[in-house]
C-alpha cells in the first residue's frame, strides 16, 4: 500500500515552509492518500469532471493549422472545459478534498485568474468560503476574471507587494494559511510548492494525458511524436506528460515564457535559461534569483506564466533528459494567438499560445499534440490593447 507521495524529484522538491504548516502538509498528504483510494471520492470527482466540468475534452485535429505546419497537429481542448482552462481539474479535486477534511474555508493564489475562477467555482458548488489572492497588476490585466470571482461569491484579496503578480499572490496565500491553518485548506494552483502539492496537482491533472493517449491511439492508431505544453508552474504540462513518460519514443516539450528575451533577464523561463536551483514557496527548484538569493521578478505577457520558479518534477524531467524545455517570446506568443484565431476559429489563452507558437515554429515531426490549456477570452482586453499599440502580427 502506498503510504506517501513523492517529496523529491531527484534533488528537487521538499518542504521548505514555516513549522506552523508542517502538520498541515502531513494532514493533507494523509487525507489525499486516503481519498484517492476511496471509490466514493474518486467516483464523485469523476462525475463532477464529466457532468459539471465537461470531461472528456475533445482531441481535435486542427486541419488548417496542420496544413500550415506540414504535419497533423492535434489540440487537446482543455479550453472547452467549464471556466475555460485545465485549472478546474485540480480545483474540483482539491475543493472536494477540503470538504472531506472538514475545512470550512479555502484560499488560493491566482495569476491569470483562471485558477482563482476555477477555485471560486468549485467552492460555490460545494458551499465553501473562498478567498483568492491576486496581484494588482494581474487584476488589471485579467479584469473579467476578477469580476467572475466576485459573482461566484469569492473574495478577491488584492496584493500590492513587489511586482504585484503571481509570486506575491502566492506568498500572501501562504501567509494567510500560516495564520488560518486550522480552518483553511490552501488550493495551490500548479504543480509546485511544498510536498505533497506537486504530486497531488499532477495526479489531478493527469486525466489530460490519459484521455489524450487513448484518443490519439483511437484516431491515429499510434502515439504522437511530440507532446507540447506551456509551462508556468507546470500543471497542464505535467498532466499531459505523465501518462506518456513511459513511452520513450514520445518527445515531451515544455514551453516556458521567454518574455522580452532570455538574454534580457526579463522572462519566466528558469528551466530553459538554466537558472540555479533554490527555495521558493516551499520547494527546491530552479528559480530566478540574484547572487544573494533574492528572488527576481519574472516577466511574461501572460499572467499565468509570469512566475520565477517552476514545479520540481519538471526540473527533474529536464535533468534526466525525459522532457525538453524551450521558450517563446511575448511577441511570438501574441502572433500565435492571432494566427490560431484566424486559422481555426479558436482564441487560445496567451499561456497556451506559447505552446502553439513553438509548434508553429518547429517542424520536424510527423504527429504533434499541443495542449490547448485554456481559452483566450480573459486576455481579450490586453491583447487588443497590445495589437493597437504594436500593430499586432
Amino acid at each position, binding site marked *: 500500500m502506498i503510504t506517501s507521495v513523492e517529496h523529491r524529484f531527484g534533488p528537487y522538491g521538499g518542504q*521548505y515552509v514555516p*513549522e506552523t504548516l508542517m502538520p498541515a502538509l502531513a494532514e493533507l498528504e494523509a487525507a489525499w492518500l486516503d481519498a484517492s483510494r476511496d471509490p466514493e471520492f474518486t467516483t464523485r470527482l469523476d462525475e463532477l469532471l464529466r457532468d459539471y466540468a465537461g470531461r472528456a475534452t475533445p482531441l481535435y485535429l486542427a486541419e488548417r493549422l496542420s496544413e500550415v505546419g506540414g504535419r497533423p497537429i492535434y489540440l487537446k481542448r482543455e479550453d472547452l472545459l467549464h471556466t475555460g482552462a485545465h485549472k478546474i481539474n485540480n480545483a474540483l479535486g482539491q475543493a472536494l478534498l477540503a470538504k472531506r477534511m472538514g475545512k470550512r474555508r479555502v484560499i488560493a493564489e491566482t495569476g491569470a485568474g483562471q485558477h482563482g475562477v476555477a477555485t471560486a467555482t468549485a467552492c460555490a458548488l460545494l458551499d465553501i468560503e473562498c478567498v483568492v489572492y491576486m496581484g494588482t497588476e494581474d487584476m488589471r490585466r485579467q479584469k473579467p476574471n476578477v469580476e467572475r470571482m466576485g459573482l461566484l461569491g469569492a473574495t478577491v484579496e488584492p496584493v500590492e507587494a513587489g511586482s504585484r503578480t503571481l509570486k506575491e499572490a502566492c506568498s500572501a496565500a501562504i501567509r494567510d494559511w500560516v495564520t488560518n491553518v486550522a480552518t483553511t485548506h490552501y488550493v495551490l494552483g500548479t504543480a509546485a510548492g511544498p510536498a505533497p502539492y506537486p504530486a497531488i496537482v499532477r495526479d489531478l491533472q493527469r486525466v489530460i494525458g490519459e484521455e489524450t493517449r487513448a484518443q490519439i491511439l483511437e484516431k491515429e492508431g499510434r502515439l504522437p511524436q511530440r507532446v507540447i505544453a506551456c509551462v508556468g508552474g507546470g500543471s497542464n504540462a505535467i498532466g499531459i506528460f505523465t501518462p506518456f513518460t513511459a513511452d520513450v519514443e514520445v518527445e515531451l516539450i515544455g514551453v516556458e515564457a521567454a518574455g522580452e528575451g532570455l538574454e534580457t533577464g526579463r522572462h519566466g523561463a528558469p528551466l530553459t535559461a538554466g537558472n540555479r536551483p533554490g527555495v521558493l514557496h516551499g520547494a527546491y527548484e530552479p528559480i530566478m534569483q540574484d*547572487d544573494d538569493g533574492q*528572488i527576481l521578478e519574472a516577466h511574461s505577457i501572460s499572467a499565468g506564466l509570469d512566475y520565477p520558479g517552476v514545479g520540481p518534477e519538471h526540473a527533474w524531467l529536464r535533468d534526466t533528459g525525459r522532457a525538453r524545455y524551450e521558450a517563446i517570446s511575448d511577441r511570438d506568443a501574441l502572433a500565435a494567438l492571432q494566427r490560431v484565431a484566424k486559422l481555426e476559429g479558436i482564441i487560445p489563452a496567451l499561456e497556451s499560445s506559447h505552446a502553439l507558437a513553438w509548434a508553429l515554429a518547429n517542424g520536424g515531426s510527423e504527429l504533434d499534440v499541443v495542449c490547448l490549456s485554456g481559452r483566450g477570452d480573459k486576455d481579450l482586453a490586453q491583447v487588443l490593447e497590445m495589437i493597437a499599440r504594436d500593430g499586432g502580427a
Partner: protein
Amino acid sequence: MTGTVTGVERIAAAFADSGKRAALMPYLMGGFPDLATSRAIGEAYADAGADLVELGIPFSDPLADGPVIHAAATSALAADATVDGVLDVGAALAERLPVVIMCYANIVYARGFETFVDALREHGVSGLIVPDLPLEEAPVLLELCDERGIALVPLVAPTTPDERLRRIGAGARGFLYTVSVTGTTGERGALVDVEAILRRAAAATVVPVALGFGIATPEQAAAAADAGAAGVIVGSRLVRAASEAADPVAEVHALVAAMAAALR
C-alpha cells in the same frame, strides 16, 4: 571574541548571565532603514540591556513574516542591503553581545551551506535561525553548524504535535524558538495560552525555551517570563519603531530599556 568560546557556549552564557527573569532577545532587521542605522539600532539594543540580538537578513519573499517585517525587508533591499553588508553589521554587534542570524533558506542555499556557515563564523555570529527549514530539511545544515560551534536554533509552533516537538527539541541548539501563536510575526493584543505552550516546549528539550511572535510591550515581556519563558523575543514592535520614530535609535533604546526593566 577569542576563538576558544563557541557560539553555542556564548548563547548559553547569555541566558545564564542575563541577570533577568528571562533573557531579552530583540530582533533587528539588518539594513533597515540602512546598514549604518541598523548597526546603531543594534548598539542601542546592547546599551539598553539586551542579552542577545537576532539579526535578520532581509529576503524578498519572507513567508513567516507579517506586514511590518515584510515591509522592512522590502525597504532594506530597496536600499541595497546585501548579505555581506548585514554580516558586517553582525560582526560589529558581536563585539557587544551574541548575534543570531535569522534568514530564509534561499539565502543559505544561494551561498552554499558550507560557505554560508563559514561566513557566519568569520563574522563572529553565534547562531542561525532559518524559519523555512523544518526538521526534515535541516540535518545537513545542522551538522555543518555543529562542526563550527554555531547553534542552529529550530522553531516550534502551537500546531506542532507532541511527538514531533520531542524530535525538534532533541535537535535544538542554543535555544528552542517557541512561536507563541499560529500565525506570522506581528504585534498582538494579548498572549494566549502561552503557559501551556511553554511548558510543553520545555518538556521536550534541554536548551532554554524562548518565546517569540507577538510580544510588543514590557507587560507582555514580563508575562512571558512569568509563564516560564527563559528568553523573550521582541520583533515587529521594534522594527515598527525603527520605521516610524523621528529618532529610531533613541526610540528603540527606550523600548528595550523598558522591557529589560520589566524583566528584572
